[in-house]
């Protein structure tokens, strides 16, 4: 080592020479009137300038009415006026969802996600994979939800200090530091009503007194020293059917996506294995980092040391060779006549392939054409609502009784003089079937190693409709 310093100095000197930006006159300036009436000089950053550090520079939270209600900067402060570009894009978009996720501005790039009617806008200064930022923002939302139960403007405003502490821990210099909920919870305790009361009385704090240990261990997702009196592990296998059914009732596309959500409350460092009766069904899977990939590849067994608490163990896609059972059918007759200001609406639901299980929590929604003024319908079961502003028809059916099929019949009033709508509305269906995974996936057994006690184990199956659409 000692022999080379002069040599390395020379090479680095050469590099520094080549890295010097060539002199480049700024050719274009322009001014733009920002919203608070100040003139702001804008010019495009020269590509030769030294790359600015920080992946995520700042974060703004914007509510549905366009107010910035929280800002956080991980580097020097970026003026709020950068959000004006976002507002412009928001205005151009007809729907809140239509705001483009990536917006370029002269100096920065804005990458945003919309969740719970809040825009999370990250300010970026230089090249970064956009998915990196998007994934992180979603993680932030998940964390808030995890901490406060809901992720609303009110909840964030009420817990602004916790939010700030969380954001501080999640990013360092714009690069994610701790995003694992188990670690964060050790650093900052989630607020509960009880704790808030205790804190106000005793003056103690939300910040963990102990420093996290998980981050350093080989299992960073699990905190150490977990203790429970009742040791339990619950697994929910939830499958969703995504389908498009065409006018005649035949399936255009249908696929099953599933997840296994777990709630594990076990003492110590348990090592779990979960095996399936029919693992071949799982075509494409993505795992929580705790799952040992090699073991899955070799034996199709999920082997893992679980995080403490709730987590998503696995998401999967059922191979497309398998035929997808469609649990409900829809008989529909929605017509508009030329020249008449009336339309007919007739909808009947019935169970199809449900393997004897009841179809519950059925909710039908449909975006009626713009010309529809009102709907006079009669539901044989459940209640329906029609919003004349958004033209959204929602029918809360509840449980389908195979003996007496639920139906919604009646007429729609159209705007006088308006021409017949071109398209019949699409019908979106939500439903739930308990105690069944529609793909037929079955968990074989769950074993625990590494700990001596006998845990209580539970597995629940459920099928839901995902993006289930019927074209009429």
């Amino acid at each position, binding site marked *: 080592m000692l022999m080379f310093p002069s040599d390395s100095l020379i090479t680095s000197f050469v*590099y*520094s020479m080549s*890295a010097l930006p060539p002199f480049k006159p700024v050719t274009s300036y322009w001014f733009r009137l920002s919203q*608070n009436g100040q003139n702001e000089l804008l010019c495009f950053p020269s590509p030769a*300038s*030294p790359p*600015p*550090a920080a992946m995520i520079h700042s974060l703004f939270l914007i509510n*549905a*009415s*366009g*107010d910035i209600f*929280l*800002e*956080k900067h991980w580097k*020097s402060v970026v003026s*709020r006026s950068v959000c004006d570009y976002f*507002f412009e894009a928001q*205005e151009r978009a007809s*729907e809140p969802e*239509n705001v*483009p996720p990536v917006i*370029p501005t002269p100096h920065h*790039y804005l990458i945003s*996600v919309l969740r719970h009617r809040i825009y999370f806008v990250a300010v*970026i200064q230089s*090249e*970064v*994979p*956009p*998915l990196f930022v*998007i994934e*992180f*923002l979603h993680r932030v939302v998940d964390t808030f939800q995890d901490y406060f139960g809901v992720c609303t403007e009110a909840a964030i405003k009420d817990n602004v*200090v916790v939010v700030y*502490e969380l954001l501080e821990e999640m990013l360092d210099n714009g*690069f*994610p530091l701790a995003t694992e909920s188990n670690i964060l919870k050790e650093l900052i305790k989630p607020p509960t009503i009880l704790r808030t009361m205790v804190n106000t009385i005793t*003056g103690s704090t939300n910040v963990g*007194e102990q420093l*996290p240990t998980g981050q*350093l261990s080989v299992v960073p997702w699990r905190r*150490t020293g977990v203790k429970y009196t009742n040791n339990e592990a619950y697994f929910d296998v939830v499958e969703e059917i995504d389908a498009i059914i065409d006018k005649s009732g035949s399936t*255009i*596309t249908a*696929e099953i996506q599933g997840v296994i959500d777990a709630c594990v409350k076990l003492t*110590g460092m348990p090592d779990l294995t979960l095996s399936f009766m029919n693992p071949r069904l799982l075509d*494409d899977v*993505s*795992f929580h980092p705790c799952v040992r990939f090699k073991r899955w*590849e070799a034996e199709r067994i999920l082997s893992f040391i679980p995080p403490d608490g709730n987590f998503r163990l696995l998401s999967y*896609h059922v191979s497309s060779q398998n035929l997808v059972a469609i649990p409900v059918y829809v008989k529909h007759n929605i017509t508009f006549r030329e020249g008449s200001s009336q339309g007919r609406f007739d909808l009947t639901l019935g169970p199809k392939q449900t393997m004897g299980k009841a179809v519950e929590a059925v909710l039908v*929604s449909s*975006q009626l054409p713009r010309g529809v003024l009102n709907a006079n319908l009669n539901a044989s079961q459940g209640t329906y609502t029609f919003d004349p*502003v958004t033209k*959204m028809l929602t029918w*809360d059916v509840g449980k389908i009784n195979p003996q007496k099929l639920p139906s919604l019949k009646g007429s729609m009033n159209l705007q006088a003089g308006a021409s017949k709508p*071109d398209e019949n509305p699409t019908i*979106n269906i939500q439903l739930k079937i308990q105690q069944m995974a529609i793909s037929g996936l079955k968990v074989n057994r769950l074993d625990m190693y*590494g700990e001596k006690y006998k845990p209580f184990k539970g597995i629940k199956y459920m099928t839901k409709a995902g993006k289930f659409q019927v074209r009429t």
Partner: protein
Amino acid sequence: NSGTKIHGNRCDGGIKCLKQASNATTTFLCSAAQPLSPPSSVLRNEDLKEMLESNKESLKLEAMKRVVGLIAKGKNASELFPAVVKNVASKNIELKKLVYVYLVRYAEEQQDLALLSISTFQRALKEPNQFIRASALRVLSSIRVPIIVPIMMLAIKEAAADMSPYVRKTSAHAIQKLYSLDPDQKEQLIEVIEKLLKDKSTLVAGSVVVAFEEVCPDRIDLIHKNYRKLCNLLVDVEEWGQVVIISMLTRYARTQFTSPWKEGASFEENNEKAFYASDSEEKSERTEAEAYVMDPDHRLLLRNTKPLLQSRNTAVVMSVAQLYWHLAPRHEVNLVTKSLVRLLRSHREVQYIVLQNIATMSIQRKGMFEPYMKSFYVRSTDATHIKTLKLEILTNLANEANISTILREFQTYVKSQDKAFAAATIQAIGRCATNISEVTDTCLNGLVLLLSNRDETVVAESVVVIKKLLQTQPTQHSEIIKHMAKLFDNITVSMARASILWLMGEYCDRVPKIAPDVLRKMAKSFTAEEDIVKLQTVNLAAKLYLTNSKQTKLLTQYILNLGKYDQSYDIRDRTRFIRQLIVPNEKSGALNKYARRILLAPKPAPVLESAFKDRDRYQLGTLSHSLNSKASGYQELSDWPAVAPDQSVRNVEVVEPVQEWAPSVGKTKKLKSDDKFYSDNEEEKAEEESESSEGSSSSSSSSSGGGKMVADVYSRASFQVTAPSFGPVKTYELLHHMTGKGLSAKYHFPRQPCLHQPGMVAVQVTLSNGSDRSLEEIHVGDRSPASLNIHCFNTIERLEPEASVTVSMGIDFSDSTQAANFQLCTKEDGFSVSIQPAVGELLMPSSLSEQDFSREQGEKKILQAPLVQLQAKCALLLCVFNIRR
């Protein structure tokens, strides 16, 4: 549930209207709407100052919480700086953290005062607790005050050599912060980066690569030696680090390896062609493929990134996908398809980015996504930009086989209530029609039907697309032009009328009878038409005047007269221009002669191509790709080098077995050095071998059977022991930390000659303390069988919590696979453990020429020990291998 939804939507609509009016005053409204904001903030701040300066911890904390609230709202709280900074050394962790938040936010503005806090951090940097050290460095480096640059530099250098990987990680982050504060420190920082790149901790790997990318992305030479390590660590690095490392390695690989793509083969993958390819073609391809041998390091990268396709983190999956796209041989890229399609189940924003990337990919390689075509079907609930991207992909995927399915799907889209999307669908149909000649007519007919649609945008778009289609094949479609002329009376959309008029004029020779009639009708309704229609009427009149002046002269003059007195100056202008151009008079100059050539010049047909056609110039998954323009700081992906640069730069010298743990036995016989492993000079090696074996054969005669034989074999060094294998090292658990009361032990066989005694097998044991107290006097206790010959490690006096230490032992298994049982003791406890060797671990790889082998065999000595017998067999295998080579 439904009730609230509806209510929410209503709210939204109302707000939208409001917003338009009040947008200019949003910021004002925003501040006025804060319920907490007092009438005068000055008063409030006085209040806070008092609380901060009070003696009560709870009051201070309350004040700090309010201050953070102010910062969160973007209010200025800088005047509280002196009062806040006093609390920087507080014992209360939450208070301290909030003060840190404040400091980082305002230090830049109040540099002098910020310096007051520096000494606190400097002190904290020396704390025994690693988390306190790390957080001190974090805050210190976040304070953007140029005057403390030397202090930061020093702190970073120290932290980079810290025992704790967590602190080292923090120092990697601090490097970027210092660099952005003072770019002049670059050289020194690069040295730190170089050092940290060598770090073996997964915790550090991601962060240091971020620093590398930030500070010196061009110093690819720093990566060479760490390349294999990074590849191997990748799976265990935290997910955010994985993204950065993968993208850096993608860039690295493109400069270091040769292209795995067949030379001369077109970029476009053509399924059809491959299927029907003649034998000769196939053969030539095969020879080309044989000529290319992938660098094992290139393969290593591909192999080690593949499992990450199963990551739950969409950014990781995308980065692996782009790595395969840019680096993998063509046929392997398909691996990523399934995972990319899986990402489409994720949030809207994720879908948006993934679909953009798929759109680019699907242009070049239809086959990749064709099986998943149905995943791109549009749902009515998708956002408009998602819909148009899916449409784009479906259009890219269209071929002769699936076009009918796709067109059927498009038919439903055309009827969508989202008119922008319907218009985009019509454009897509147009593209399909030009790309696939079989369906051109069907598409055209379908589009003609759409002309009677009620919606303005749909009709206008159809006319425009038909116009483009007709322009590409003008010879065949006079029927459609005629049809459009017939429809003309019913079409009310001015854009569509104008387009039809343009078509009439352009192809007036194909509809010689109809065109003048259309002009006649237009003359009648001219005054009532929209401007754009009027302009096209004038155009039509001019063109007809030139081709068919007999029938249209009067009509043209009439229209030109109407135009002359039109209200719109555009039309008056155009009329004047056309009149001068086509009607010859004494004033019109030379231009008049060329009127025909000007107006009836053949116009280039518009090209209907994908908006994603040229996006592949950017690396997939990048911001630049998403924006389709170069983002600042974007690093170009270089082309493959024609000739691979030196591969040996990535070789890492094998470190001699950790000698620091066995200093007493450091003087054991030096074995042949390992660096010969990579040496190219085979001859020299062979010479040495024969020499040494000759020299040794005489000395070996004294050896006498049994286990001792092994020792002899080593001592004479007649067998050149080949370098330790670079296969995966398997680690076994010796003691679980639960049974070991916090002490855990793992072991592996380093597969290197044991330094303690030649007959022993080397074992490396990693002891770590998982408890929260320190363990003392760790040593090896009783062993069974008692005769077991173990070379123990020196007693470890003290092992701190979370610390771990690696020690080496030597165990004489007496050439059997019988387990060695012994006790691992701490000051208080003893735990029985056992090490059971696999047969393979007892063997020592060595190379031996065939002659030497037969000679050794002839002397019969070599076969006396079963171990050596096995060794000989291995040697024979090696010989065979040598001969064949």
